[in-house]
């Protein structure tokens, strides 16, 4: 089944890069929506059903951490996995993101294969070994 995704980043170039990586990674992709910050992301999520959110951290208006917290507090949105796609950050910040409900962290720049592996793992579609 095709995956519908929401890409959240204040940089239009990065949103296009992530869309390109999604297209290259070999997953069956349906609709890919975009938002420029966390607040816009919540509006998109109110309008569209998605299977996965890929979000940056440092954004104006509402950053990625607040977006994760707001989604986790909403019963309708808490089921949607969020992968944080951001610049290298401290281990403490990664732990904090996972504590508040993000499912994974992927450091920029990343290879499309790394995104694919992470998505498959999170959605429980990874290859079984042994």
């Amino acid at each position, binding site marked *: 089944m095709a995956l519908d995704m929401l890409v959240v980043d204040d940089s239009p170039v990065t949103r296009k890069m992530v869309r390109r990586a999604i297209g290259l990674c070999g997953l069956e992709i349906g609709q890919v929506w975009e938002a420029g910050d966390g607040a816009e992301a919540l509006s998109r999520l109110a309008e569209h059903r998605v299977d996965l959110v890929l979000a940056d951290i440092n954004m104006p208006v509402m950053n990625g951490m607040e977006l994760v917290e707001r989604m986790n507090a909403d019963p309708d949105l808490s089921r949607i996995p969020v992968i944080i796609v951001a610049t290298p*950050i401290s281990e403490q910040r990664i732990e904090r993101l996972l504590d508040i409900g993000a499912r994974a962290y992927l450091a920029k720049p990343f290879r499309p294969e790394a995104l694919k592996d992470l998505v498959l793992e999170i959605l429980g579609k990874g290859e079984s070994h042994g």
Partner: protein
Amino acid sequence: MVDVTPELLTDILGTVLQDSAFMFVEPDQEPVEWSDKVFAASLAFESVRGGTLRLTMAVPAGVELAANMLGTETTDPEAEENGRAAVSEVLNVIGGAFVTRYFGAKVPSQLGLPQAMLASRPVSGRRTCAALVRTEAGDPVLLELDLE
């Protein structure tokens, strides 16, 4: 905390340009003559010490960066339109790489939001350290660090 040296900045700059946009660069020595306009971006950071990173790219280098990040050609109007945004984003990645390497991955650090503009000349600062590289086409790219 490692020593901040031109070699450290050159390594971070070269690695990020290569990994983000398949741009291969060679270290060079200043002074550099900036012809025409430049893309100038700055990014503040807070950690054990605060400071600012500044990235200056010749316009053709910024357009090449955007084209490579978007998977298009430098002649594509989309590449030219996104040069400033591409320089801003690559400085964001450089900032993350810098704070985790300089202060360490276990030390809390905070990046600001990158600001980029098309300028007639590089924006000057106190400049603790700097690294100059050139793209394969010979266009200059300058990364400067101002530590507080």
